[in-house]
């Protein structure tokens, strides 16, 4: 399906239609605008982005972190270190599923000590991914502060965790699932709302398109 939808929806081109059963919540230009706003907010909150390091959570947090870094560089002419932080080994649900393949952890040169680390993920849901990321960070260094940027906050937190920067607050029902498609991973930019994957609705068929929506 995605193979036909390579148009990025930028400029005057009409956005590609959402797949059957899904509704487009954010299209390409809207994602662009949200990221630009978050980049400005990061600069504002961190007094010009000093000592900021962006860490994307695989898989879709990583391209988002890179895009944020590009925008920060465009605005403030400042190169912020970008890396990735795989949280698989720190998950609290490892024993509920067969062993998962690992993502890449790439800590920027210069480490994380005394940096303001901004974790970047696509969807904030239960908050468990972020909890795992905080645990992983503790083994990698001692940042001065840790902040969280997400493209979509869909609610339903199971832990006392909140985001510092949110692209879009999206009130959802547990019967719904949020899918983030990014050009780097999926060939186009879109945030889609559709039926939930098996996590919220046990016994439901697993949909490959929704695997990217982090929890």
């Amino acid at each position, binding site marked *: 399906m995605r193979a036909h939808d390579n148009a990025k929806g930028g400029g005057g081109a009409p956005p590609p239609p959402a797949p059957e059963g899904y509704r487009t919540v954010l299209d390409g230009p809207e994602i662009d605008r949200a990221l630009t706003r978050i980049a400005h907010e990061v600069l504002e909150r961190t007094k010009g982005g000093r000592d900021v390091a962006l860490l994307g959570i695989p898989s879709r947090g990583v391209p988002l972190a890179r895009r944020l870094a590009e925008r920060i560089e465009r605005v403030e002419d400042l190169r912020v270190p970008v890396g990735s932080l*795989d949280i698989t*080994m*720190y998950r609290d649900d*490892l*024993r*509920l*599923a*067969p*062993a*998962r*393949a*690992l*993502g*890449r*952890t790439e800590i920027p040169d210069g480490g994380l000590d005394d940096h303001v680390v901004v974790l970047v993920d696509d969807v904030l849901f239960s908050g468990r991914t972020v909890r795992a990321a905080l*645990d992983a960070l503790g*083994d*990698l*260094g001692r940042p001065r502060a840790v902040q969280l940027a997400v493209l979509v906050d869909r609610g339903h937190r199971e832990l006392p965790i909140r985001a510092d920067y949110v692209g879009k607050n999206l009130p959802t029902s547990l019967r719904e699932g949020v899918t983030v498609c990014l050009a780097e991973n999926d060939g186009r930019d879109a945030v889609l709302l559709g039926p939930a994957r098996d996590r919220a609705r046990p016994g439901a068929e697993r949909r490959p398109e929704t695997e990217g929506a982090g929890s």
Partner: protein
Amino acid sequence: MRHLLSSGDLTRDEATLILDTAAELARVSDRSVKKLPTLRGRTVVNLFYEDSTRTRTSFELAAKRLSADVINFSAKGSSVSKGESLKDTALTLQAMGADGVVIRHSASGAPHRLSHWVDGSVLNAGDGTHEHPTQALLDAFTMRSRMGRLEGLRVAVVGDITHSRVARSNVLLLTTLGAHVTLVAPPTLLPVSVHTWPCEVSYHLDDVLPKSDVAMMLRVQNERMHESYFPSVREYSRNYGLDAERLACMPPDAVVMHPGPMVRGVEVSAEVADSPRCTVTEQVANGVSVRMAVLYLLLGGS
């Protein structure tokens, strides 16, 4: 994947997953906190009926880096020396709630038997002259990181093939991963069934080396030899030992591997052993990462 008994049981996808996982876990060794919480609360038993330093410490370190509890059990100084059978020892471990059992045994097939008696995962750490799958995995990992690929790689395995579990495991795994293996040994040190193995066989080291990207040198296992397999150590070394002159015949980026323990002056000359093209210490370091990957994939999930 529940047990790791033979590298022949691994599909190409499974073997690649283990190597990819190991590549990510190798980075943990570079961190200041070299520990992951993944196997917290799980128990790994190292059941060693045969002497081993490298493999046992490697498994122990791998399990500890994943926060598992490790029990080391060696045949010496345990109930085994009082006459307890493998089955009863296994049932004892079972009663203690071992999630994973790493076993080395002098009898080929012991891990396979054990896997029927315990509920946890069984990891073969070397059984007699049969298999040593984690050694093959770490060898494949080392080749992949040195040469950048495994597909089409030409590997010469040289030495005492008959008594080597490393050779069998490597032939099976490397073939699965797309490499071409040639065994090189005097006829007396090749197993009878070698024609059924998915590899080529040669008696002449000098013919094979110029066409090989990797030379894996094996130790002559005197402790398993009950008769004379070659006239003298000196003659064996002349014909099948790797010295600087022979290394010079190999392609310029070729590497020399050895599963250890290495006997300098017999299968590898001291000069070659100390050259940067010899990967022995790299193999040991990679062994920890590969065993972490195997422990994670076998014990980490549901």
